[in-house]
């Protein structure tokens, strides 16, 4: 009993406003504000991300959704002058804290970017590069993980005969699925997708969307998208952002058929943005 209490104390130091996590939430955002220097890009948003679901973030350009996404895996740290206040609770820890080892965090919260960015190496090496860095060295294990990740990304059949060829010889859609495979190989819990198919042709886009729906069985996915039809097709919950505010966050069905806030309705019906 006592030891359990002691454990709780030390974790409480990090998650100050320790609200007991709901069993099906993987992330809890509390009053998150993000600044670029003096300019505030995200204004005090709070939301819970459900486990094993697809959460879509929609809104016009510059509304803060990508900024928000990038704060979840601390990629905003790369931008000089960017700072975040508030909390994002993951596994009982506030991952915005100084104490967090971001390198380890990013293994659990992976990201796929808008423009496919495979390394100028072979397909095989693209996947093993990060694995080798984290300590997996044995070839047989690496081979297995490569195959498993490529299968999960629905790419294995297309490339199994040329996994040692350069990744740059793949088409745009294949490259993006490779980037997804590369992230899957790290066995993350959460996957952040920043407009993953906006640079792809419609057929590749469809394949990626299929993939995302499959992936939610094993991962929790947050996807930023400009494409409202995509959001309505594949997501379970949708959040509408406008000028740094979270305007409405609800089940996708409700957002797209009967939104509660007028602005949401205007955006959905194309009246602006």
């Amino acid at each position: 009993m006592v030891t359990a209490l002691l454990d709780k104390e030390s974790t409480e130091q990090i998650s100050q406003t320790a609200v007991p996590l709901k069993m099906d939430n993987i992330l809890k955002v509390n009053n998150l504000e993000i600044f670029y220097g003096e300019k505030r890009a995200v204004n005090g948003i709070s939301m819970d991300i459900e486990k094993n679901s697809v959460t879509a973030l929609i809104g016009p350009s510059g509304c803060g959704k990508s900024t928000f996404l990038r704060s979840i895996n601390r990629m905003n740290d790369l931008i000089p002058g960017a700072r975040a206040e508030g909390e994002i609770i993951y596994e009982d820890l506030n991952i915005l804290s100084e104490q967090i080892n971001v390198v380890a965090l990013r293994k659990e919260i992976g990201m796929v970017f808008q423009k496919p960015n495979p390394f100028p190496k072979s397909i095989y090496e693209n996947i093993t590069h990060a694995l080798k860095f984290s300590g997996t060295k044995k070839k047989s294990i690496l081979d297995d993980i490569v195959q498993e990740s490529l299968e999960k990304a629905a790419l294995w059949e297309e490339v199994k005969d040329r996994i040692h060829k350069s990744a740059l010889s793949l088409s745009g859609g294949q490259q993006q699925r490779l980037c997804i495979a590369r992230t899957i190989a790290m066995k993350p819990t959460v996957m952040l997708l920043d407009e993953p198919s906006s640079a792809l042709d419609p057929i590749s886009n469809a394949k990626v969307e299929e993939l995302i729906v499959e992936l939610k069985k094993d991962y929790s996915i947050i996807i930023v998208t400009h494409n409202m039809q995509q959001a309505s097709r594949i997501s379970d919950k949708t959040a509408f952002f406008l000028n740094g505010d979270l305007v409405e966050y609800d089940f996708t069905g409700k957002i797209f058929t009967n939104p509660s806030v007028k602005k949401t309705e205007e955006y959905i019906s194309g009246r602006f943005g």
Partner: protein
Amino acid sequence: MNSKTADRLATGVFVAIAIIIISILVGLFSFILVNGFKHISFEFLTTPSSNVMAGGGIRDQLFNSFYVLFITMLITVPLGLGGGIYMAEYAKPGKVTDIIRSCIEVLASLPSIVIGMFGLLMFVNLTGWGYTILGGALALTVFNLPVLVRVSEDAIRAVPRDLKEASLALGITHWHTIKTIIIPSAFPSILTGAILAAGRVFGEAAALLFTAGLSTPRLDYTNWNPFSEQSPLNIFRPAETLAVHIWSVNTQGLIPDVEEVSNGSAAVLVISVLICNLLARWIGSMIHKKITATK
């Protein structure tokens, strides 16, 4: 004169200027190569030089030029790369970075004779080494370093940002990303820049006059022990390079065939620099093709 005539006249002037520039180059190059070529023979390249008699070759000077270049690049390339990595990846905008940039600017614009004087002060007198290859290399490092820092920094900055982000997002540390993703991508540009810099160093003389000296001791080319006094690999010996040799035979020397020796040496120098330039260009275009072909 109406504006149409003025315009035509002006165009004529500009064309004339272009022609002048081209003819200067053609004139210089043909002079050097035509006059010099006939003096370059295997003998010329392998006979030791003479201070008073005709028939001297440039064997030692040629070797010295290459060896000094080699030692200089050995020091400058790692330092330049490190400096470039710092400026591109770690330096935060602010006072300290501005100071470093100013230092780079200052070092890059110092006249080479001033650098030679500093070398004389530090690496010849203060250390008590006298004229040495190492002293010359260190002096050359002073003005080669800013070039390589700039080359490295530019090459690293040119690596697309999303490559770096991809690596970091996978949970790879910054330094490992630099080592395994960024530097390999930037390598071709760095190589090109380094080769061009090497070309410039090869022809440098003023900085070496008072650091590597105007003479070469008797060398035994079969002696590969770098610690022996007669070994050409010994970096603590004086070493007159080819460029310095051209200067010294024309201003200090007494040899009767000064023109032949100078012409030959000048041709060798210019051809070497030309090869460096061409090599750099060739590598540059090969890389360019490789990158754009696979995309």
